[in-house]
Each structure stands twice: as structure tokens, then as C-alpha cells.
């Protein structure tokens, strides 16, 4: 008893002392930054003390996995909660939120920052973060999707990857390379629920099969023959020649499997190349080739995605917030990461000048060009068979899509797990989608 009380009292004293300094009286010169906990962002957090020292501006990071970060950032921004001075968002949120008046227009800030050079951003990325031609978020890294494949396994099996592969060809390769005994899956594809997880690759597949979420008049098309064909193709490919644990495998799980040598191919975000070629995390450095996103009916099929930084309208110290954002997205930052952590860890797909750096070109020679080509080709004209009433390639650029996409993705993973037929999954999804579509029909 007495022991316990003493323990309690001692820790109380100790802790109230610390907490007083750490948590309660935070001065106004400290920025709070909500960020997605991906490796490139963690590098930025590790480098942040340099910024603090140079500017005297304190930084506090809230780093959460994608789904949680998104829920938090959206709730905070939509209710104007004001917890964050800088938020990490994507090209899904940026134009919508700008239209809602939730974000600070960054054009004046960029204009007032000599040497920032926003003209250096890859045009399609810049465009995707703009609303009425004004940028409301600045990109940290950008990506399309492409196909990584193990050149050594292809050679051994006597296969050659075409310059522009099609999905039926890929399914064929996957069947030939699938080696259950050796623990090597034919292909790794995401099956983990989440609109940013399985639906991203799946929707690009659906697009190239000629399917669409909604037609021009906001009729949901999830039970159309094209959509059903695409869904069956995707689900069967995973079930027959995909990775184990597919229905809970997302980017990171596929990444682990591919870099540990447990998959022969992997269709995913172009940023994966950095991890694949990093000896610290990968057992298959130098063994991969990179092919453009496979197609069926369209010219291209890669997605377009970027993690970017924006300032909520309610943020207090917008100038300090901008200073930090500029530091994290300017040319000098790229150099800093390259020299500190190695060139494979540089945030890719954002600045054209990055690709002109000789060290980077050398380190990234296997994937630099496929990445740039993928990003350049990622637009609705090239990746979709017919016009749609919404922005976005791998997502539907309306606010309801977070919810709709997540629900549909749950149905998709149920089908991948074999708990439900693809037809049932699509029928249920169609209901969800039509409810959303109807609310837009009414608006028109």
C-alpha cells in the first residue's frame, strides 16, 4: 500500500513537471503538421530539425497511417477545427476542398518566394492540385502506377516482357511464373479494403476494360458487362496466381512480399521502385524491370496521385506554415535527401529538375523514365474508354467517394477472400453507388 502511494506520488511530481513543459503551454511559433506516415515523410520529419534551427519556427508532427490520417485531417478541416497548420492531402481532396473554401490559395505565397520555381513541377501533377488554375496544395511526391517484374525469373522461364503489356498477357505470365512450392506468387495486387488501397489499382483495371463508375448522366455502372468483366479478371487473377493473404494486402504488404522475393510481378504505385532498389529494405536490388501499366482497351492505364501539403483556411500563422512547406518541397530539399539518405529515397515524380540531377538519374535509371512516362500519360483521355462526369482516374472526385469507395472495396475484398461471389459483390456495390449517383442527378 505505502509502496504504491509513494510510487504514485513520485511519478506525479515527475510527470506534472515534464508535461507542463511539453504539452500545455505551446507557443504560437510552433506549427502543427498532420502528415501521412510513409517512408519519404519520415525522412522529412527526421530532417526537420534543420528547418527549426534555421528559422526558429518549432515543428510538431502528427504522423498517422493513411486511413487514420485522412479521417483526422478531413474531420479537422471540414469542421474548421484548427488543430493543424499544415495538412498533407492528395489530389483527391485538394480541388474539392479548394472549392469549399477550406484551403489557402498558395499562388501569392509562391510568387513571394524567390527561387521556389513552381514552373518546375510536372504539369499534370500541378494541374491535379489546382482549382481554377490556382494551386491550393504543393506536391511532395507524385506517382503513377506501373508494373515491376523480376527480370531474372522471366529469363529463367524464357519469357519476355513486351514494351506495352496487356492484362491478358500479364495473366498469362502470372500463371507461368506462379511457383507455390518456392513461395513465389505470380503477381501481387492489392486486395486490402480502402478506396486508396485496393480500389486504386482495381479502378485503373476497370477503366482499361472500358468500365466506368458512373456514366455521363450519373447512372451507376457497376453491374455493366465491362465492370463485371474487369472485376472477374482482377479477382480471379489474385485468387489463382496472386499473393497469399491478398484480401488484407495493401501497398506495404505487397511491398514486403515483392522485396523479399515472394512475388514475380507487382502492379502498384511508381514510388515502390525506391524501396525495391534500396539495399537496406530489399533482397532483390537490381533484379527488377519496370513496364507501363498494362492495358486492354485504352492507350494507357496508370493512375495519377500525389501527396501534397496545404494550409487550412483557419490556420493561424500562414506565413510560417508556408515557409515550412516551401522548405519541404523545394529543390534544395531534394539535394538534402539525396546526400543524406541516398538518391533512391528522394521524393519522386514532382520536380522535373530532379530528373536532371546526374546522381539521381544514375540511381533511378531503371525506373525514372517509366515513372515520368506514366505520370505524363495519366489523364482521363488516355486512361478511359468513354467520358465520365467526374474528375479523377483511380478515384471518383466527389466527396462521397471516400465512403462509397471504402464500401465497394470491402465488397471487393470479400470476393477476393472467396466469401462472396463477384456478382453479389457488384450488385451490392451498385446499390451503394446508385444512391450517391442519384444525389447528383437531382442537382443537375
Amino acid at each position: 500500500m505505502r509502496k504504491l502511494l509513494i510510487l504514485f506520488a513520485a511519478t506525479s511530481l515527475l510527470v506534472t513537471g515534464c508535461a507542463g513543459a511539453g504539452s500545455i503551454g505551446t507557443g504560437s511559433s510552433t506549427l502543427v503538421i498532420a502528415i501521412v506516415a510513409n517512408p519519404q515523410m519520415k525522412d522529412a520529419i527526421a530532417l526537420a530539425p534543420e528547418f527549426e534551427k534555421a528559422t526558429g519556427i518549432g515543428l510538431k508532427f502528427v504522423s498517422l497511417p493513411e486511413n487514420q490520417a485522412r479521417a483526422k485531417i478531413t474531420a479537422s478541416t471540414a469542421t474548421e477545427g484548427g488543430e493543424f497548420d499544415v495538412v498533407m492531402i492528395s489530389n483527391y481532396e485538394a480541388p474539392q476542398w479548394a472549392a469549399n473554401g477550406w484551403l489557402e490559395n498558395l499562388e501569392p505565397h509562391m510568387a513571394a518566394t524567390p527561387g521556389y520555381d513552381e514552373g518546375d513541377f510536372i504539369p499534370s501533377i500541378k494541374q491535379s492540385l489546382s482549382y481554377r488554375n490556382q494551386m491550393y496544395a504543393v506536391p511532395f511526391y507524385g506517382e503513377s502506377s506501373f508494373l515491376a517484374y523480376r527480370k531474372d525469373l522471366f529469363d529463367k522461364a524464357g519469357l519476355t516482357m513486351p514494351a506495352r503489356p496487356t492484362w491478358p498477357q500479364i495473366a498469362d505470365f502470372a500463371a507461368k511464373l506462379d511457383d507455390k512450392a518456392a513461395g513465389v506468387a505470380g503477381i501481387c495486387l492489392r486486395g486490402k479494403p480502402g478506396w486508396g488501397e485496393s480500389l486504386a489499382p482495381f479502378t485503373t483495371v476497370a477503366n482499361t476494360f472500358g468500365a466506368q463508375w458512373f456514366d455521363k448522366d450519373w447512372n451507376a455502372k457497376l453491374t455493366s458487362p465491362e465492370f463485371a468483366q474487369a472485376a472477374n479478371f482482377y479477382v480471379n487473377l489474385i485468387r489463382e496466381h496472386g499473393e497469399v493473404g491478398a484480401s488484407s494486402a495493401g501497398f506495404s504488404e505487397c511491398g514486403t512480399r515483392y522485396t523479399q522475393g515472394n512475388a514475380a510481378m507487382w502492379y502498384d504505385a511508381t514510388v515502390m521502385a525506391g524501396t525495391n532498389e534500396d539495399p537496406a529494405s530489399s533482397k532483390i536490388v537490381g533484379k527488377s524491370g519496370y513496364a507501363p501499366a498494362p492495358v486492354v482497351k485504352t492507350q494507357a492505364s496508370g493512375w495519377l496521385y500525389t501527396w501534397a501539403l496545404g494550409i487550412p483556411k483557419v490556420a493561424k500563422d500562414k506565413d510560417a506554415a508556408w515557409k515550412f512547406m516551401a522548405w519541404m518541397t523545394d529543390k534544395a530539399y531534394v539535394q538534402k535527401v539525396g546526400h543524406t539518405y541516398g538518391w533512391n529515397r528522394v521524393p519522386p515524380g514532382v520536380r522535373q529538375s530532379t530528373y536532371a540531377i546526374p546522381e539521381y538519374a544514375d540511381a533511378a535509371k531503371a525506373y525514372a523514365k517509366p515513372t515520368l512516362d506514366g505520370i505524363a500519360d495519366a489523364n482521363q483521355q488516355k486512361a478511359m474508354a468513354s467520358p465520365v462526369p467526374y474528375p479523377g482516374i483511380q478515384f471518383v472526385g466527389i466527396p462521397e467517394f471516400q465512403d462509397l469507395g471504402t464500401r465497394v472495396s470491402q465488397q471487393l475484398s470479400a470476393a477476393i477472400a472467396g466469401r462472396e461471389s463477384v456478382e453479389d459483390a457488384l450488385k451490392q456495390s451498385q446499390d451503394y453507388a446508385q444512391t450517391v449517383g442519384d444525389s447528383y442527378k437531382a442537382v443537375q
Partner: protein
Amino acid sequence: MTTVAPRKRAYGKGSLTVATWIIAILFVFPLLWMILTAFKQEADAYTDPPKLFFTPTFEQLGNVLSGGFLPYLSNSAFVTIISTALVLLFGVPAAYALSLAPVKGTSNALGFFLSTKMLPIVAAIIPLYVISQNTELLDTVWALVILYTSMNLPLAIWMMRSFFLEVPHEMIEAGRIDGANLPTLLRKIIMPVVAPGIAATALICVIFSWTEFFYAVNLTAARAGTVPVFLVGFITSEGLYWAQLSAAALLASLPVMIVGWIAQNHLVRGLSMGAVK
């Protein structure tokens, strides 16, 4: 029973002891594995088959500690201690009122307290978010202090009430007859009996506050994040880091693990609500 030969009996007990040990180790094996993984390099953390022998490293623990763990730790400690203190401040008088000086409506009050524990906490999360935003409590330790106090108070009152009921009625009456007033009664007669029970209750409040996840994740950001929030930050969307995750999980749980180990007996007493004397 009595016919069993002593030797055979001793042998039987020995094998039961071995079995108990094996079961215990199997039961906590995932935990032991986590501790082991915390000292691995990432490359040793996910291997097939799992590696039992490896060169231990403090790198992961070091990374976690240097990765901004301390502010979360101090937030957690602050919230836990202050809310536990508040629980005792509100709870002890209430438990006294509900046990030694019961009035009409006692059972209603007790029922009310317990019923609040049965409410799904998600049901009120949106209003709580909006209210804390409007009162400028969002992302402050005080929001959590208030919520944890109300979260633990009902159970604490139930527990402490049962300890107060243990005070022999005759002792109180005897004290009254001797002319002792309420403060004296409390100090001299009641407190010595209930103090261990109060300590046990405090311990349980500490455990529940330290490990609370839902409010912490939804109502804090950078300034008031507690240890579970820190832990979630270690799940990255792009790349699995088991060793680092294990190290973070270990460090996050350690304070309460140690307190719980030291005060095991109090834990038993608190949970059994005074039924064990």
C-alpha cells in the same frame, strides 16, 4: 485421496507444475516474441521460419526514443495521474455517500453510474469532438483528463463503495458514541480500512487511462497525443517495420506493465471489489 502414496503424489504435482509453466509460456508467447522482436534488425524481424537467434540490437528502441516518444509519454502520464486523482476526489465522497450514509435513491444513483459504462463510447464521439472544439479543448490534455475521469468514475465508485461497506458498523457506532466527529471518524476509523481498496481502485484507473485508445486517437493531434497515438504512428502505409513497431509497443506498454507487476495484489483486490479481504 488419502490412499495415494506420498511419492506418487509429489510426482503428480511436479508434472502439473511443469504443465502450468508450459501453458503460461505458450499463453504469453506472442508477448515474449514481441520483446524479442524489439531487439532485432528489421531484416531479422520478418523471416520464414521466424528467427529465434540473432544479434540483438538497441537500434529500434533507440529510434523510438529519439523519434519523439517522450512528449507522448509525459502526456500519457499527466492525463493518467490527473484523471486518477480526480476520480478519487469525486469518487471517494460519492462512494462514502452510497455506502455508509445511504439515502433514498442510492440504488438509482448506482444504477445510473454503471449504466453510463455500458454506453457505446462511439455514440457520442462526434458531439464530443464538436464540444471540445468549441471550448478550445481539442488537442489538449484536459479534454482527455475530463473524459477519462468520467470513464473511470462509475467503476471506481462501485469498487470503492464495496470497500467502504467493509468498515464494521460497530466501529463507527463506537466512534460516534465516543463523540468523534465525521472528520475524525474518517481519519481514524474509516480510512485505515478502505485505504488499500482505494489504492487498488486507483491502480485500475491508471491501467484503463493509460491504455485508452479511442478518445485519444480521435480527440488529440500533436500537442496532447498519448502513448497509444504514438504507437499508431508506427504503422506506416508504405512498408512494414515489425522490429520498430515491437520496440514502440514495448516502450508504450512498459510503464503500466511495471506498475501492474509491482501491484499485482492490489489488482486482484480492486477487481474483485472487496470480496477478497
